[in-house]
């Protein structure tokens, strides 16, 4: 058996408080294989975003990683020095945030924002960067001639696709997506996720996908982990999480989604 791309082992993260600490992530372990889409589902405050931040070492005080390892191809991310970390981010782990469409710089043209990344990480000159930008924009169905436009000239869905294109520009090994489409309409959401799925098949990167929408997650992911209050309470293939949930909390989560097909949700989930 080959080693998984990403291994999270016994990760524990605390938020340091004045009087007591809050354990946001409690002894969580999971693997993400090459080319796999792994989903983390749970309610707000369950620690799923904290894990996402920890993986790219973007967590800031008061968050503190108490113990555990995050291994990317066997290398512990937590041991990287600042220089290594700069190389590691984006080139190996890229991140798409919930409000990613607002993370574009409003006063720079799209091509400048690509150039910034490509120059820093791959020492590209302007002409090379333009070529790469055109290629990336085509991948996400945006006409390459629009690279001269500013972010406000694009719709929310387009901006989100541009962010994804920038993320993929360096061929990262894994893309961490924290609620990437929550702010978008269902149609746009579907278009974007479908495209990510195709790109994943083509380029073979892995995805760590975080959302609270279980139905969407089952559609999009190969395997899913369910989080509750910092603990990973269930981990299984998407079919089994949907068809044969084991943990009570997973069952309750399912019960809290009314189905489109009419059978009403009956049980009330815990508050």
């Amino acid at each position: 058996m080959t080693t998984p791309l990403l291994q999270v082992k016994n990760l524990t993260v605390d938020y340091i408080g004045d009087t007591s600490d809050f354990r946001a992530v409690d002894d969580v372990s999971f693997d993400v294989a090459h080319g796999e889409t792994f989903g983390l589902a749970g309610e707000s405050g369950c620690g799923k975003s904290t894990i996402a931040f920890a993986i790219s070492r973007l967590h800031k005080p008061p968050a503190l990683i108490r113990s555990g390892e995050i291994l990317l191809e066997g290398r512990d991310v937590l041991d990287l020095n600042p220089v290594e970390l700069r190389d590691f981010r984006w080139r190996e782990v890229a991140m798409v945030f919930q409000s990613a469409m607002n993370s574009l710089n409003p006063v720079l043209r799209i091509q400048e924002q690509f150039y910034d990344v490509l120059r820093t990480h791959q020492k590209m000159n302007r002409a090379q960067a333009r070529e790469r930008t055109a290629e990336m924009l085509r991948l996400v169905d945006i006409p390459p001639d629009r690279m001269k436009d500013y972010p406000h000239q694009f719709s929310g869905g387009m901006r989100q696709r541009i962010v994804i294109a920038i993320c993929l520009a360096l061929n990262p090994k894994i893309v961490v997506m924290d609620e990437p489409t929550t702010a978008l309409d269902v149609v746009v959401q579907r278009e974007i996720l479908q495209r990510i799925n195709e790109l994943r098949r083509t380029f073979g990167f892995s995805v760590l996908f975080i959302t609270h929408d279980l139905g969407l997650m089952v559609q999009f992911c190969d395997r899913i982990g369910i989080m509750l209050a910092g603990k990973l309470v269930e981990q299984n293939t998407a079919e089994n999480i949907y068809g044969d949930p084991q943990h009570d909390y997973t069952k309750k989560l399912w019960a809290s989604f009314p189905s489109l097909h009419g059978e009403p949700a009956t049980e009330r989930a815990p508050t």
Partner: protein
Amino acid sequence: MNAPETPILELDRVSKSFGTAPFKVNAAQSVSFELYAGRTLALVGESGSGKTTCARLVMREYTPSEGQLLFKGKPVATDNAKALARYRRSVQMIFQDPFSSLNPAHTIDYHLRRPLQLHRRDLRGKQIDAAIEELLTRVKLDPKIVAHKHPHELSGGQRQRVNIARTLAVGAEVIVADEPTSMLDVSVRLGVLNLLNEMKRDMKLALLYITHDIATARYVAEDIVVMYAGQIVEWGNVNKVIDNPQHPYTRLLLSAVPDPEMPFDDPKAQLKSTDVEDIRRLSAVPQDRIVAIETDHFIRQVASSRAA
């Protein structure tokens, strides 16, 4: 829509546009729908489709550019402040964001006491206390625990319940709920929806439920209106519209709803972006012809096209 009785609120070919040509935006174009006591109408569509404009028209925050609002059969006064205040007593709104819709400086008790003092002049002293207690109990909050707290001490779901209690405090007959659960955690959403369902049933409220989540629309509503680009494209009985969508945009919307039984790798689940563009383009032009699919299911389409 299948009318069990006379509507409590009716929008009659209401249009609202912003700006002037060439920058004119038609946010709502000839929108008509009716709200009935004890029934919920779900208004669904993507952002920018005109849902919130409709909500604001119903609230009379906007004056219609064309058409009129009828409340219990009578046109809603546009220029009479007193009449408008009376109207707003009957038509209340629940906002999307439970975190910004309560004043952080005041207790929950205050939030309910004020509307009672203003709108229920018949109540005195202890009666107001009793009314507050009753309101909180009705929305399933414990008055002893909650009444003296400030909003920041409550969860999102609890705050949304306070908002619901506040609409009931003034004796609202029509409640406009604009995405009331989209900012709540998934596990408390159903509780708030169940509460709205209960209010509607027990207090004979007319509910306008605005959402982009069609599954919850089916859960709470009897009737549904699908909007796109400021126009109503399809409307009718909620089950009929969802099970048998006829307008291309409704079909697109329904096909994009997350469905755990359809993994993305399933070819049937694939949504072609060229199709999406076509549907969007064709649905954005004026749809002037109304076609009845059934007695309680209608679509609008371009005047020249054939029935689907």
